[in-house]
């Protein structure tokens, strides 16, 4: 299925958000949202991905 990871289109067979993060090689120090809603770390394995989902994977960055 086709999903978007940080705005970029991806083809994936990952069934859950947790599986997708592993497939994409993200480390542990990230926070996630699917379709503009926050998904806590503990909930990632239970979040089933669907075609067209928009996944955001954020990490710590410089800020003012």
């Amino acid at each position, binding site marked *: 299925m086709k999903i978007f990871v940080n705005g970029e289109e991806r083809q994936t067979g990952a069934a859950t958000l947790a599986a997708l993060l592993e497939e994409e090689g993200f480390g542990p120090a990230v926070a996630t949202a699917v379709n503009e809603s926050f998904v806590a770390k503990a909930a990632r394995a239970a979040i089933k991905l669907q075609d067209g989902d928009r996944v955001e994977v*954020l990490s*710590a960055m410089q800020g003012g």
Partner: protein
Amino acid sequence: MPVFYGTDIDSALMLGTAQYPSPKILEAAFGASKAGIATVSLRREQGGGGDFRALVAGLGAQILPNTAGCHTVKEAVTTAHMARELFGTGWIKLEVIGHTDSLQPDVFGLVEAARILIADGFQVFPYTTEDLTVCARLVEAGCEVLMPWGAPIGSGRGLMNEYGLRALRAEFPDQALVVDAGIGLPSHAARAMELGFDAVLLNTAVAKAGDPALMAAAMAGAVRAGRAAYLARPMEPRDMAAPSTPVVGRAFL
């Protein structure tokens, strides 16, 4: 020294972590200023996010994540939740931007987002205008800290509405007040502290100085001087001269 949501902070200088020439210079600026709080943000992970988190953990400052760049309540609330998980803190510098060129906050969205986040257990540091009514709404929502701008973010113009900031201090004697944004020079930071503000938050003035660590130290000194001056209760200015040397006993020559 400022107290934010029951936490004592060792310095009234709050420093951003963006725009430094290098991570080493960022560390030098924090080392030279002993800033008490470091602001950080969240952005799309492109490698290096873990490194930066380790760097800020070593700065010796409390971490204050922001919602910079958010233009809607939903974006800001979602970002705050992601920040809480990532940084392990309920503190959030709440920005809901309303105007692209001036980065003026959308105060209507700000109040709404503050209500939602405080109900969710966050400790909100709202980036706001100096409007008394907006600030009253933020306090009603449960904000113990108010962070009015001095001037637009990154402009370095200083305190554009000193009267408004002074009025805010008088209106909210029990809230922690921080001038956030617009500080360009140590004199601006000192002035904010002379007005009785509890802290200042700045970034560009240090990061874009020719010698960021030296400017950071200058800002720290200015903040200390301004705070001491406020506590010392300054004299009232007057229009005419008043001789400081005693007139009595002057020789007839």
